[in-house]
């Protein structure tokens, strides 16, 4: 089926949402959302961070009740009171944070909560057969029904969730930012799988901040802004610029801001870095005043490289020099003193303190600087320090006192970035810094990085999103199976060359 060419059936749409509202205390997450998705289409749900996309989909999946509004599936009213009830009506959701039990096998995960049993003893033969069929349909060869989920990578885990949805005979599958932690080949596979599902009559709801991806896979789209439906249309007949404008309510330049930079001497040099499992061999020099990118597939060892360099994981061998002086036994507190900051890719666990307020989070690494004469850090000082970031990164929050737990995924990421920027480090190690951030705010992050580089700071950025690396970096190195290739100026790279290097092909 061609993208965009949805056959309009006679009869009611597969999913219809009318006037749904939802408040969390004083926050109006949804103020009257309408949406219609047809049988056999990929319906993209677009909107800035905090627009209410995840909230709306949680309502569809029965994880949260709406305050008001109505939903229909195939013309029949639908008001699920639990995920289980939604599943029985054919709705399955694949969340932003993946939802599997790592200690259980694929089969146990797929059947969890609806095992067939005789006198309490599991009877999974039928489910095993069905799962085998589904895995074959999905062209899965990398794992089987009895594989433990803890041994699977993010791409495979997502396939397990998709398999679970299919075993449930779901007719509506919701993906919340499914590609944000996948690498290119896994994204390709997900596209293929999704197209197959849609051809088979399944309706897919797809939340994403990557508009090129929406262009490639979507049929129609709905745009949310501040909890309201502000636009809808056909993906093929709408330019990405139009989509962005509708999302933001103003025009946004999607270009990569780039000033003239003049990289100076190497400030951080790493030789032969090896961790317990990965990386196997990583050497690079990071210069003042440049942004250096590290590309690679998920699982290539990029995160492990940053972690063992930063002392979060053991470093098995390697030499590290900072401004010409060797650094022995690196550990995080030492790095912070030396002016080196790290942004973890694991936002929920290491990026932000979920229970603390935005102000507390933003100033977490810089409390010493903010302390007054008696060494106390007043709340006012913290809020004053955090306030500019709220504006700058268009953080959607009622105030900087709001706990970070209540923020949308993208807004949590913005808080993590603000904390790193606020700590005033000269050398920044960033692991997937723009994960989950909307188009407009992403440009703002790129502008920040550019500005820091111009000021002479050194930035190392790990990303799986190749266009952003090509757009913002001065040099790019590619990691493949734990070995970091040489960093080369970005002019020497093309998308194809970088992808080839990341998948072990020659470039």
């Amino acid at each position, binding site marked *: 089926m061609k993208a965009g060419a949805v056959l309009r059936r006679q009869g009611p749409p597969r999913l219809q949402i009318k006037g749904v509202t939802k408040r969390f205390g004083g926050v109006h997450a949804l103020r009257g959302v309408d949406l219609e998705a047809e049988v056999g289409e990929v319906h993209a749900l677009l909107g800035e961070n905090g627009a209410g996309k995840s909230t709306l989909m949680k309502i569809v999946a029965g994880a949260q009740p709406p305050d008001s509004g109505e939903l229909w599936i195939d013309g029949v009213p639908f008001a699920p009171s639990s995920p*289980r009830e939604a599943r029985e009506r054919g709705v399955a959701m694949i969340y932003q944070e993946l*939802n599997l*039990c790592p200690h259980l096998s694929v089969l146990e995960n797929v059947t969890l909560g609806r095992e067939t049993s005789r006198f309490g*003893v*599991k009877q999974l033969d039928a489910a095993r057969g069905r799962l085998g069929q589904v895995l074959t349909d999905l062209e899965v060869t990398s794992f089987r029904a009895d594989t433990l989920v*803890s041994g699977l990578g993010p791409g495979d885990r997502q396939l397990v969730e998709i398999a679970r949805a299919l075993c449930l005979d779901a007719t509506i599958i919701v993906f919340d930012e499914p590609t944000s932690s996948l690498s290119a080949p896994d994204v390709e596979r997900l596209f293929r799988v999704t197209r197959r599902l849609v051809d088979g009559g399944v309706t897919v709801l797809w939340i994403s901040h990557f508009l090129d991806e929406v262009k490639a896979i979507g049929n129609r789209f709905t745009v949310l802004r501040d909890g309201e439906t502000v636009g809808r249309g056909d993906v093929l007949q709408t330019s990405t610029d139009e989509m962005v404008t509708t999302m933001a309510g103003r025009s946004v330049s999607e270009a990569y801001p780039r000033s003239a930079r003049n990289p100076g001497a190497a400030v951080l040099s790493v030789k032969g870095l090896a961790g317990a499992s990965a990386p196997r061999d990583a050497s690079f020099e990071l210069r003042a005043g440049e942004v250096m990118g590290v590309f690679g597939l998920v699982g290539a060892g990029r995160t492990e490289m940053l972690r063992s360099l930063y002392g979060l994981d053991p470093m098995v061998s390697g030499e590290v020099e900072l401004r010409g002086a060797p650094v022995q036994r690196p550990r995080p507190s030492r790095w912070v003193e030396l002016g080196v900051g790290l942004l973890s890719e694991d936002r929920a666990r290491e990026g932000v303190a979920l229970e603390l307020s935005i102000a507390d989070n933003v100033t977490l690494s810089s409390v010493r600087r903010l302390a007054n004469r008696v060494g106390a850090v007043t709340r006012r000082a913290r809020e004053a320090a955090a306030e500019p970031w709220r504006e700058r990164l268009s953080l959607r929050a009622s105030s900087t006192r709001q706990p970070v737990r209540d923020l949308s995924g993208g807004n949590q990421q913005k808080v993590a970035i603000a904390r790193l920027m606020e700590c005033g480090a000269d050398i920044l190690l960033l692991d997937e810094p723009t994960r989950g951030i909307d188009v407009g705010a992403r440009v703002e992050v790129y502008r920040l990085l550019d500005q820091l580089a111009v000021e002479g700071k050194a930035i190392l950025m790990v990303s799986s999103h190749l266009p952003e690396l090509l757009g913002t970096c001065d040099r790019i190195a590619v990691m493949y199976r734990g070995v970091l290739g040489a960093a080369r100026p970005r002019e020497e790279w093309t998308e194809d060359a970088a992808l080839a290097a990341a998948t072990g092909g020659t470039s």
Partner: protein
Amino acid sequence: MEAEDPTTPGRSAAAARQVADILGPFLGLIVVVALFGAVAPEGFLSVFNAKTIATQTVIVGLAAIGATFIIRSGGIDLSVGSAIALASVVTALAMKAGLGEVPSALLGVLAGAAVGAVNGGLVTLLKLPPFIVTLGTLGAARGAAKWLADEQKVDAPSGGLKPFMSKNPDLSGLPGFIRENLPDWLVLAPGVWLMGLAALAAAFLLRRTVFGTWTTAIGSNEPTARLCGVPVERTKFAIYVFAGAMAGLAGVLQFGRLTVGDPTTAMGKELDVIAAVVIGGASLSGGTGTILGAMIGAFLMATLANGCNLSGVPNFVQEILVGAIIVSAVTLDGFRSRQRAS
């Protein structure tokens, strides 16, 4: 090509994984046995002594079966020792009242289950952390035992409950041809057989039943389990009741062993129980831990105590050794799981 891929274990690989998981505790046990075999007097490496150790394993072993479920579900139970004491007192009182062995034993098990029900109820209804809840019942159940027993040992006829922990059980009840052909090493205290059967049943429960899978799922990722429709609260409650009942059963046998109901017995046993489960490969963060591992852990602890006694090692050395073993078991486990993650 995928079939040979070592990262895609099928059923046989899953079995291999289970063997690998049990290997650590098993090697630990062998080390301890070898150590005392070299140091302790000959008596240590005898069939008779092995039986003694097996009998000494029973109390902790039975309780460890229940604790495995709790720890696998991500919880913890500190009230085990007190539950054992309470159950032993209740059994003694029932025997004293002339209720007979079976009803008395059932009452003892029920007393343990009641402690478990209080634990489970508070954990699920009030959403309190199990550590705090069971710290509370650790005191409360002990207090209840003393109150029931009037702060003294309850003398009661132990009747048919006594031979359960006897190393030389009376075999006259068995059919003649079995009695004559029974090899000496199989003549174990009935309590040991009971523990073995309970362990087998519990292993089946954990691996093959829906209840077992839900237990693991809750310990592995509770929000997901809830999202998938697992009745998390109900399952947790059942886990605590089951573990309490196992502690109760241990209490009944403790009464049989002491032949009195002692409200001050099994003081601090909860730590031995947790140690047994952890030495057996469980992680306190939930999702792991096997019955076989816990049994080996319990046996290892009993062997250690026995070996120290026989070789005249002072008590404090034994305590230091137990501490060292727990820490090294957990360290080893950390290594293994990190290795597996890579």
